């Protein structure tokens, strides 16, 4: 009983099904081997007058398979161990690295506030740059943490029926400072009609904010981002269209890959992590939705996200 309890704990701890746990894989392999050996014995006695030879052969084969199985099991254990280390590492990043970065940010803030009158314009600019870089590093850590959570499906989805337009408005408000800085206008007429969707509110926000943030990042000053919502069968489609740098045809299919950064993207936004769209897709698909892209280099991109509508009760 203790063994089964251990398996259950391991399965829970590492987030892999019991049948995939290394020890279970090894036992399964041994059982299969025994069945194959016995089966071969009966077949051999039926069709051959000298079953001894066959059995030796089968035994050698079984031994080899067991050795391979053992190697496999070892590798699986290593993977599990690595996953555990990764998890711990992410925890360390979360707690240990964020704190000094936060303190630095706050100290810069205080310095700027209190020493501003004794500093010249150039020095204030330098302080602003330190602040911006600190923010960038903090955001990257937040991205990595979000990704690891979503990637490993650690978060539970909490579904509720909400109006997509309300969430979009909230996301726009969240990004209004950044948009103002880049002199980007939003064309969003979300208040006229409400389309209900059944999603995890917080996760949907991560996705929508990522796409709008990209649209702002990759647009030149003074451009407009058009956002529309429309019922689309079982879904509600949210389109976010920018007049930015666009994405090359060959890159469009791989922009959703983890750590992938397009050529244009690297130039326009060197500090990106290549995780944003990967996370976005993962989050949307987890909720039963889809995300697709239409883009033309130098003309702009249009992302279409489809979120499931509430089921009729």
């Amino acid at each position, binding site marked *: 009983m203790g063994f089964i309890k251990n398996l259950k704990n391991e399965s829970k701890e590492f987030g892999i099904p019991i049948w995939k746990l290394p020890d279970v894989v090894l036992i399964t392999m041994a059982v299969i081997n025994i069945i194959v050996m016995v089966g071969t014995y009966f077949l051999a006695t039926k069709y051959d007058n000298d079953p001894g030879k066959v059995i030796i052969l089968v035994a050698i084969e079984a031994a080899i398979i067991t050795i391979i199985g053992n190697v496999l099991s070892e590798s699986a254990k290593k993977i599990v161990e690595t996953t555990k280390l990764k998890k711990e590492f992410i925890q360390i990043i*979360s*707690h240990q690295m*964020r*704190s*000094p*970065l*936060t*303190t630095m*940010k*706050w*100290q810069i*803030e*205080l310095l700027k506030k209190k020493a501003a009158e004794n500093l010249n314009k150039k020095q204030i600019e330098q302080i602003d740059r330190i602040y911006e870089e600190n923010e960038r590093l*903090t955001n990257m*850590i*937040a991205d990595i*943490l979000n990704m690891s*959570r979503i990637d490993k499906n650690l*978060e*539970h989805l909490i579904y509720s029926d909400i109006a997509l337009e309300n969430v979009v408005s909230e996301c726009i408000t969240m990004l209004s400072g950044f948009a103002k800085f880049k002199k980007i206008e939003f064309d969003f007429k979300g208040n006229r009609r409400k389309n209900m969707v059944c999603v995890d509110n*917080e996760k949907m926000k991560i996705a929508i904010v990522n796409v709008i943030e990209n649209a702002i990042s990759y647009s030149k000053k003074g451009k407009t981002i058009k956002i529309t919502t429309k019922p689309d069968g079982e879904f509600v489609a949210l389109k976010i269209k920018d007049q930015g740098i666009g994405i090359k045809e060959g890159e469009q299919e791989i922009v959703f890959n983890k750590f992938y950064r397009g050529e244009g993207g690297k130039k326009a936004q060197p500090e990106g992590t290549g995780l944003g769209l990967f996370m976005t897709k993962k989050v949307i698909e987890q909720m039963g939705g889809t995300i697709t892209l239409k883009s033309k280099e130098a003309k702009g991109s249009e992302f279409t996200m489809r979120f499931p509508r509430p089921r009729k009760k």
Partner: protein
Amino acid sequence: MEPKRQKKILIVEDERNMRESLKEAFVDGGFEVLVEEDGESVSDVVREKEPDIILLDIILPKKDGFEVLGELKDDMSTRNVPVILSTNLSDPSDIQRALDLGATTYLVKSNYSLDDIVKKVSNLI
């Protein structure tokens, strides 16, 4: 008219530089500031000094923020003092746990400037 009483905040934070930054910001914001470096005697301090609000870190030596929050909410004399749990843990399960235990709100420190934190706290009292 009675003069406006200075608001009192208790900051519980184990990291010195972070604590000093917060203290400075709240003093500048017109608060009377009390500080604690660990969770051990927070309940006693709250009973004795009666702060208007508490900014409580989660990871603390001796007694963590969840435990301290539980103590405060169990005691009739301290249960109504608003508590903002402040931390850099941003796991939704931690947020949920803090709210379940009765925290007024939850704040991921790295997401806020000092100005924002002072504003947020001022709005709550």
